[in-house]
């Protein structure tokens, strides 16, 4: 078995494609994806904030103060003259305007007699923009002024004002610390990426070790060697497992490493907070939980690969496996699904939930027993199936 493993691993390390998936991808692409996404999002947000918005006000005569306020902020807004009955939607779609503010003729009426005023804001809200917020910033001053004036004339004091505006207030006394908040946000997404990377890392060697052997014509020669079939399977299984685990190890180490670089080197605030909360033990536990997960992946991938007639066929089967892997992770992200009761025993979902709990710092360490037991049983059963599969002529000689 070790002989098979040694040979397969030697071949694996000589395969550039596998090395890219196993080492390059988790080490560089993982942080690159987040880095690029972060860069573009912050750029887009900054642009939306500082961009000079082209606008038109219809009915400006009814609210001259507001109109003047917009006109005064030349570094933020640019007035475009339009006709009263112009096609607002068309002008916004053609990017002649960013927004149109339509002020009603009753705007100067007393709110206590005329009721609530409605200003229409026409905008294209499909992309990232801050039009509503930037318009509200100006209009809200007048809303406040109208309100104060109304209350004053009604003889309502400040305390009564507050009570009328919000008769009941729910004051949140959040007992969750920052770690729990960040853990909930990051910990849910993390297994999604880690699982996919482990699967990707194991996929290339799995295709090669099963279907690749068939396609090259080396399988038959291997089958007639004086080696028990189960040893052949275990040797191949261990190689795939190893590739998946190296990917897992590099992924987790890469996360930790980039975490340190971003927090200490570049002082990115939220990374500093997260890194201060997550300990090395958490990273070690995440890696340990990935061992049976990778074993499950390796056994399934090898079974599919042995069944496939060619490398291409194997790749198509394995492509669909990504959906199967994503499903239990999505379940783990659903509201109400927690690492309790039956969920502790649901393979993959339990590991995804446990990763979240570890990041949140609310892990029930007794659950680890259920997690390891259930995933190990599933992995063992799948390896047994793999050996059975490898003994079937109709699978080997399809």
């Amino acid at each position, binding site marked *: 078995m070790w*002989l098979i493993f040694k*040979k397969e691993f*030697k*071949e694996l390390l*000589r*395969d550039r494609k596998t090395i890219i998936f196993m080492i390059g991808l988790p080490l560089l692409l993982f942080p690159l994806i987040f880095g690029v996404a972060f860069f573009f999002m912050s750029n887009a947000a900054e642009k939306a904030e500082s961009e000079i918005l082209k606008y038109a006000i219809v009915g400006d005569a009814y609210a001259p103060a507001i109109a003047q306020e917009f006109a005064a902020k030349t570094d933020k807004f640019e007035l475009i003259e339009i006709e009263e009955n112009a096609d607002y939607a068309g002008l916004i779609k053609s990017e002649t305007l960013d927004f149109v503010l339509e002020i009603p003729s009753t705007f100067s009426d007393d709110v206590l007699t005329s009721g609530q005023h409605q200003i229409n804001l026409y905008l294209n809200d499909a992309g990232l923009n801050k039009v509503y917020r930037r318009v509200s910033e100006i209009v809200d001053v007048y809303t406040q002024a109208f309100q104060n004036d109304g209350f004053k004339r009604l003889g309502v004091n400040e305390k009564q004002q507050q009570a009328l505006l919000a008769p009941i207030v729910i004051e949140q006394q959040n007992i969750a610390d920052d770690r729990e908040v960040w853990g909930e946000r990051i910990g849910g997404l993390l297994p999604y990426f880690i699982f996919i990377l482990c699967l990707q890392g194991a996929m290339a060697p799995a295709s090669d070790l099963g279907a690749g*052997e068939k*396609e*090259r*014509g*080396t399988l*038959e*020669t*291997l*089958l*007639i*060697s*004086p*080696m*028990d079939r189960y040893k052949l399977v275990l040797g191949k299984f261990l190689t795939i497992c190893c590739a998946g685990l190296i990917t897992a190890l590099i992924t987790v180490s890469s996360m930790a490493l980039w975490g340190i670089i971003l927090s200490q080197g570049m002082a990115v605030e939220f990374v500093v907070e997260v890194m201060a909360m997550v300990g090395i033990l958490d990273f070690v536990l995440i890696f340990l939980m990935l061992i049976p997960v990778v074993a499950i992946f390796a056994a399934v991938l090898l079974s599919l690969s042995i069944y496939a007639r060619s490398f291409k066929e194997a790749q198509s089967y394995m492509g669909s496996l990504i959906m199967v892997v994503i499903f239990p992770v999505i379940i783990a992200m659903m509201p109400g699904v927690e690492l309790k009761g039956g969920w502790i025993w649901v393979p993959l979902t339990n590991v995804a939930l446990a990763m979240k709990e570890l990041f949140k710092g609310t892990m029930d360490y007794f659950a680890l027993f259920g997690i390891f037991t259930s995933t190990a049983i599933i992995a063992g059963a799948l390896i047994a199936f793999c050996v059975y599969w490898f003994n079937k*002529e*109709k699978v080997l*000689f*399809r």
Partner: protein
Amino acid sequence: MINISGLAKRFAVENPKKLSEQEKKDPRLKGRFFNSVKDVSFTCGQGEVLGLLGPNGAGKTTTLRILSTALTPDKGSVLINGEDVLANPLIARKKIGFLSSSTGLYGRLTGRENIAYFGQLHGIDKQIIADRIDEMADLLDMHSFLDRRAENFSSGMKQKTSIARAVIHEPSLVVLDEPTTGLDIMATGTVMDFIHRLKAKGTPVIFSTHHLDEVQLLCDRVTVINQGETVFNDTLANFSALSDGQMHKSFMKTLSMETGVAQKCG
């Protein structure tokens, strides 16, 4: 002495509707099953070279796969020097050297590593493996490419490496499935010389081929399989005598023979 008797092997047809019209007419197709080998028997003595002939799809490769223990037959027996191959496949594999028709090598390993790997699978000592590789590199003229990665090998280089790999454990029976197919004249010559050497050493060789000139040059015995059944099994001299030394005509004649005739010949 190799004794193969009454071999039969059928395969389930995955999708009978996808078979060609010609395949559908094959009498070996029975419902969802295809009787690839129905009744194959032949013998090969110590130091003999047996040529296995037959048209494409006759069942030669299936027969050789059974002989090499890659496939298990539904019926029949394979005995090497009286030992039942099917009862003890692991032991039998140590005695058989098999080269399949769709031979392949591990591209990212060198020629030497490919051969050594199979030597190690047979449990041979590393030093002995190294010595045997050198010996075979001399015989098969492999020194110039032995330490290069197999992914860039020519057909001839691949075949030589595959042959060396198949006999690294010095088997007591060598089975070669179309060993010269796709090779140039030089490589074919090397392979044929190698079979000659095995014969001289007293190792029985069973090889399938479509080249009757190779049969004439190398074989002591000839077995012809047609539609999964042995139709001829006798000495080369008797095969040749079927049509006054005209090998091609002899072959065509055997194809029209029935199993009963084959038994008489054997």
